[in-house]
């Protein structure tokens, strides 16, 4: 079956990318950097701590031995201890990653539901008012640095109009996290709280049934999510507009019309479906962009997610966090590409054949 083969090939490619990132990061720290031990230990480490770190990470062994340990540690969840938080990095990632994923998904959904209809409409009337307006907007939005978008929203909507809160993922008074999701461990016969969904502030509040926390989390997410949505706003619109125009010029649209189908059936069933194909690929690119844009946006809004955590690790030279975070974000990006690829091949039967 074509689809299974395609998925297999894409998964292999994804694993290759993750492995590549591990190699790159390893060489960066343990080979290219002048003093790996002090990098791992953090800038304020004492000589004793550096001693311990050197032993812990096998920094006196030849590089290939170090690499084996490094890969083994990574896959066993042993990602080092953050000198900044004095906490195992994996725990920090578990706490912060879901927050950003939630934010990025919200902004992606916002983008898609606003931009695709706009793109379809401008595609139906190329060079009309809407089309030209979007074109001008996109020229600007793709040139605005993400921190400027966030800054503008912060100044106007938070400080000036007081419409939305300026910082934090949820009102600190309401920040109660009750575990909701549990995973059954058949070996121990115990239930464990599942961090992934529990650490998403909006989803968790909703599932726990705490509606004041839910409202607060939603309120706090609006500005950061909007920043990510506005950043590069118009890209999807331009793409879906172009592919709509292209689709409408295809012969199969003429066939559909010649058949006597109503115009809206022609557009929805025949043109739209085909014109959305490239948007799937772009969505994964945009999702990856949002996760990285979160570095800046979350810093400005003090929104405690992966972006904020990574930004802090950059500024405070918390290298173990930075490295693990880089690899984790790579994994997220690779998975989103994978999902897009698979989705594309489900919608477009031609792709399955070309593998």
């Amino acid at each position, binding site marked *: 079956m074509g689809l299974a083969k395609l998925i297999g090939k894409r998964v292999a490619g994804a694993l290759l990318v993750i492995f590549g990132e591990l190699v790159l990061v390893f060489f960066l720290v343990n080979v290219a950097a002048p003093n790996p031990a002090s990098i791992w230990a953090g800038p304020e480490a004492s000589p004793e701590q550096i001693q311990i770190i050197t032993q812990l990470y096998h920094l006196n062994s030849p590089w290939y031995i170090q690499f084996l340990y490094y890969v083994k540690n990574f896959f066993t969840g042993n990602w080092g201890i953050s000198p900044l938080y004095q906490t195992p990095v994996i725990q920090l990632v578990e706490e912060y990653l879901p927050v950003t994923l939630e934010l990025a998904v919200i902004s992606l959904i916002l983008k898609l539901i606003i931009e695709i209809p706009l793109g379809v409409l401008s595609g139906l009337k190329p060079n009309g008012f809407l089309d030209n307006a979007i074109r001008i907007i996109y020229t600007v939005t793709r040139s605005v640095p993400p921190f400027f978008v966030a800054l503008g929203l912060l100044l106007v909507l938070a400080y000036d109009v007081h419409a939305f809160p300026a910082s934090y993922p949820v009102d600190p008074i309401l920040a109660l996290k009750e575990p909701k999701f549990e995973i059954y461990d058949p070996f121990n016969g115990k239930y464990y709280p599942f961090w992934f969904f529990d650490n998403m502030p909006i989803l968790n509040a909703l599932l726990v049934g705490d509606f004041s926390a839910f409202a607060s989390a939603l309120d706090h997410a609006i500005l950061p999510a909007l920043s990510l949505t506005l950043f590069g706003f118009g890209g999807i619109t331009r793409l879906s507009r172009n592919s709509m125009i292209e689709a409408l010029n295809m012969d199969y649209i003429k*066939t559909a019309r010649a058949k006597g189908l109503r*115009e809206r059936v022609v557009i929805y069933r025949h043109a739209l479906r085909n014109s959305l194909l490239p948007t799937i690929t772009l969505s994964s690119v945009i999702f990856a962009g949002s996760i990285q844009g979160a570095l800046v946006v979350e810093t400005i809004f003090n929104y405690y997610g992966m972006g904020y955590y990574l930004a802090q690790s950059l500024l405070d030279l918390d290298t173990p966090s930075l490295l693990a975070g880089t690899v984790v974000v790579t994994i997220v990006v690779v998975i989103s590409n994978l999902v897009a690829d698979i989705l594309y091949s489900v919608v*477009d039967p031609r792709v399955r054949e070309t593998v």
Partner: protein
Amino acid sequence: METTSEELTLKVEDLWVSYYLEGREAFAVRDIYLDVGKGEVVGVVGESGSGKSTLAHAIIGLLPRNSRISKGRILFKGRDITKVKTDQRYLYRGTNIFMIFQDPMSSLNPTMKIRDQLQEAIDVRSGRRGWSVGMWKPPKGDNEEEIVDSLERVGIKRPRVIMEKYPHQLSGGERQRIMIAMAYLLKPSLLIADEPTTALDMITQAQVMRLLSELRENLGLSVLFISHDMVLVGQIADRIVVMYAGKAVEEGKAEEIIESPMHPYTKGLINSIPDGYKNEKRIESIPGSPPNILKLPSGCSFNPRCKLAMEKCISEDPETRVLGGRKVACHLY
């Protein structure tokens, strides 16, 4: 052929179609009169750029965005369909007028199974054209037998396998057969075939031509067959219209046109046929190429390429003359 308009499937009167090109209006179809009787096959022959395809698109109401019918009437079963509003034109397509396109590789939706695309045709025929049909996909109807039957009629082996496939999994010939199967399901009164075999190899071409003849006999429909190939048109058409630079230069019964062409352009077309109809003459081609519709020559559009051109041909566009059941637009007659 004198018939009243009620008996005609299609009657085109004084049709002018223009494109908006480089900031001005250019005419791709000029002053066309055309009658297609019930069950009749009319061939339209001309080089690329002669306006034959534009004529076809005007009749079915699928002109591109930058073009319009600037003058004339298109009477379908006595009713002027140029007066029908754009959003109601779909009612005249499918079950009334259907069209098969040149490139079978792109004329079927690549993301829909053959079965669904044929089901749509059944839906249209049974009056289900709107939302009720479902937004993304047509519902799996109980018309499977009918779909299988239509596929068998166009000579597709293993129809139950083929109908579950996507267009890219089929050959060009198979796809054009699917288009003909679609015509069987729609049962239109008029079929427009726009160069339906041009993209196919010789053997497939012959098969598709045979299927089109069978279709016409089985359904008793009228056909407007458009091609650049005089031989192909001669095989199927009752009458032939020869178009040049948007005008009909000659019209008559198929055998008369082929046996004794009158217009120098038609003669050129017949002489350029490599083998068969006119053995005694050498193979000739018409010198030059058809004019750009933005820069039409004065007088008769064919004059720069015509060996018999006279002074009058440059100064005056010839009127169409009726000579014993034939029409010709040339100063020689």
